[in-house]
């Protein structure tokens, strides 16, 4: 087993972090509902919020993908704010109607929003009461996806963290993989771990409530997503132990992620190599195709999903790009440290945002590729900067070996397109 060489000039783990506080151009945590409601097929997400929350959910999802999705918004009205209506009773009646219409719901998440938090609607109390009322058929949990508390992918973190305390206790030695993954990716991962002889493997979130996911002092957990800080803390509080590793993006990231787990479970190095050899070769081959486009190009990340640091590691080390700035909404050393260590020194590592100042830096640097949110992409394209919109990274299967080429392709496509289009006026 050949562990990855740390970068010659040193990594970024100890690099100074540019901390910014100003206008942020990011989604709130409610956005996570858009993928979570598809992942957890017996769950329903009820946002207690405003018309803005409902509008965000349908706009961020690209407007109405599903005729009747497993999420909805209970829109606060004037009577709710003036205290004329008892908010707890209102929640009860909305939930009663919902459960009557959707008997397939087994887990209901009451999701707090900016307005529900500002007027202090106690959703924990509501969840507890409603859980008791609808048990055992329906489990009711609550978390906050509000923009005053959470940024984009932190919504998934909050949802998973809310599930940790109610997971059953187990003393079994088990591997828990945490973070929502598309089913096809999840199946590949479980298959790889199975071939390595690691198991039993439990998943959080699981596809339905009746799965055997439990936690205890003998649980070790690996994060499949880099934005799960609160879930990480909640799992540690229940005695589970984290296996810090680079995230499974690209051939190297996937191999290192698996290697940390394999080492923990005492997998023979020769067996590890035997299992990973073929998919590693496939991943390298697939990435190489995109690297022809990406190699030698510069890269600038606006903060969005907390995927930025692992992706910068993948794009610099495996695709030959040079990072100019890697912005992340939040940086946790315990989670992002292993990737920072591998990321070659040089780029500005920034946390938080002051969007106008960051735009000035991007314009000055004129990167070959800018990774940013949907609100900024077209304006930057109009200024001649190629962009990759970041939300695709959470809506597309990108983890593990078989998706490494697709992941690289997401970044190379905008550049290839720029090269393909011949739109200048004839001479």
């Amino acid at each position: 087993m050949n562990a990855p060489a740390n970068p010659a000039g040193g990594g970024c783990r100890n690099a100074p972090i540019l901390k910014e506080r100003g206008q942020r151009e990011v989604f709130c945590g409610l956005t996570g509902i858009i993928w979570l409601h598809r992942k957890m097929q017996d769950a329903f997400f009820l946002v207690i919020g405003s018309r803005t929350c409902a509008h965000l959910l349908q706009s961020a999802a690209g407007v109405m993908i599903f005729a009747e999705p497993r999420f909805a918004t209970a829109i606060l009205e004037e009577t709710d704010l003036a205290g004329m209506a008892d908010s707890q009773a209102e929640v009860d009646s909305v939930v009663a109607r919902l459960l009557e219409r959707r008997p397939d719901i087994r887990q209901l998440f009451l999701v707090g929003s900016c307005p529900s938090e500002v007027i202090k609607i106690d959703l924990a109390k509501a969840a507890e009461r409603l859980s008791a009322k609808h048990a055992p058929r329906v489990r009711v949990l609550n978390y906050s996806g509000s923009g005053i508390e959470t940024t984009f992918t932190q919504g998934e973190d909050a949802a998973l963290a809310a599930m940790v305390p109610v997971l059953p206790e187990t003393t079994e030695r088990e591997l828990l993989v945490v973070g929502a993954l598309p089913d096809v990716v999840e199946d590949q991962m479980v298959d790889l771990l199975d071939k390595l002889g690691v198991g039993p493997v439990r998943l959080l979130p699981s596809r339905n409530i009746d799965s055997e996911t439990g936690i205890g002092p003998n649980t070790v957990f690996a994060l499949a997503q880099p934005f799960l800080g609160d879930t990480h803390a909640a799992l540690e509080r229940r005695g589970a132990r984290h296996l810090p590793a680079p995230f499974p993006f690209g051939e190297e990231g996937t191999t290192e992620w698996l290697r940390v787990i394999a080492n923990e479970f005492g997998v023979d190095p020769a067996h590890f190599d035997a299992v990973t050899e073929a998919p590693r070769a496939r991943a390298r081959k697939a990435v190489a195709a995109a690297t022809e486009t990406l190699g030698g190009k510069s890269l600038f990340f606006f903060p969005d999903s907390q995927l930025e640091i692992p992706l910068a590691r993948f794009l610099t080390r495996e695709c030959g790009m040079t990072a100019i700035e890697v912005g992340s909404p939040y940086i946790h050393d315990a989670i992002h440290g292993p990737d920072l260590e591998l990321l070659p020194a040089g780029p500005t590592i920034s946390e938080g945002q002051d969007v106008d100042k960051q735009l000035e830096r991007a314009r000055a640097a004129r990167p070959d590729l800018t990774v940013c949110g949907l609100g900024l992409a077209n304006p930057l394209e109009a200024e001649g900067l190629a962009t990759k919109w970041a939300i695709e990274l959470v809506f597309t299967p990108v983890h593990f070996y078989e998706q490494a080429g697709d992941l690289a392709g997401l970044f190379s496509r905008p550049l290839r397109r720029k090269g393909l289009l011949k739109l200048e006026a004839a001479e």
Partner: protein
Amino acid sequence: MKLTVWTYEGPPHVGAMRVATAMKGLHYVLHAPQGDTYADLLFTMIERRNHRPPVTYTTFQARDLGADTANLFKSACQEAVDRFDPQAIIVGASCTAELIQDDPGGMAETMDLGIPVIPLELPSYQRKENFGADETFYQIVKALSQPQDKTPRITCNLLGPTALGFRARDNIEEITGLLADLGIEVNVVAPFDATPDDIARLPAAHFNVLLYPETGEAAARWLEKTHGQPYTKTLPIGVGATRDFVAEIAAITGRDLKADESRLRLPWWSSSVDSTYLTGKRVFLFGDGSHVMAMARVARDEMGFEVVGMGCYNREMARPLRALAREYGVEALITDDYLEVEQTIEAVAPEMILGTQMERHIGKRLGIPCAVISAPVHVQDFPARYSPVMGFEGANVLFDTLIHPLVMGLEEHLLTMFREDFEFHDDAGPSHHGGKATARKDPSETVEAPVAATVAPAPESTFEIVWLNDAERELKKIPFFVRGKARRNTEAFAAEKGLQEISIDTLYEAKAHYAR
């Protein structure tokens, strides 16, 4: 609390953004948490705008709430003015900031920014997007327009087009051209592409053309009252309405006006024999009140459709829409509940829907073709080509828009004739649309159980009507675009006759009964 799955309108501050984004030289300082910045993508992605909306969000967080969100607002305001150098700013709060009661308007006014500051009070928990746009535009006009002499020549303003509107860019061009033909110059178009200086010049025009009542009526009324500018009440959508619009302007200006109709093609396209198949197509209309009312006339009088239902999501238009629905002999559906619209459409079973982005999805689910005629719309409804829906070219565009989703005339006959053909059958769908045509399964392979339908013919009794196997098979031979109607009519006929079972004879008796 009101349970909502999909919304037709965003919150009122998004309406204010539609005005700010449409304008130039104006900046919007919005007291709002970070998540509210999602609204930028409506403009940059859906409308493909190549600039960020001119909006500075304070993006306060939970930790700021205990501290000083007011100062955060002030510094955001100052920085926005310094950085973007606008001619004027509008300031306001989104739903969350409204709750913390920082009074952004009051604060900005005391800051001595050296430019006009227009405070907005948009009640987020009572009103919606269209109100927000209408109110914002009204406040801007009220604050910035200056008393002045009218222009020597007859001029007018075009009022109401905003960002994210329905075909605003091309409607402005078409109506500007139509007015030029009539010898009337456009003084200012607002808010679309207008600067605060342009707003100041609004009162110089002789009258106003209100293109988008949902987002411009409050300003038009105020200008009429304050500056004596009458405004047009007819929306020039369709042939008849465009002619009425010209007549209305003739009355306002006291001139004898005659529009050039040489480019108008809808009347002949609609009269030509291929269009015969459009006769009596049952259509259901839903959208914003103005577009639905205008399109009902186009559908009935210019396409020869039968209007079987209409409704709007904006309560502000409920009264005129109800009145119009009575004229058409249908009940108006006034709701912003998407599920209610879907249920109504399912019950009415029209052959086509004229709706919004939402109805497009309803149509997809129910297998009913849909043409989009009103906001809210998605990215595909911001076409690259010139495609107004107003004026005479707009009428031509509407003809195309309304027939595109349908099976074409002769094709319809062929489908009826060869409905047993294994390839050329109705499940294959219209031939000019994408999608794979699947070969029909041999009907003899599938033996279905009798299908029961619950019908409530009279309030006192509910009973089951059973479709006999051969009748059910016969029904399947009827092309898909009329099958829903045939089923409904037959069941209604059976219920009326007190029949418990539907046989082939019942099916054809019903057909004869409803024959036109």
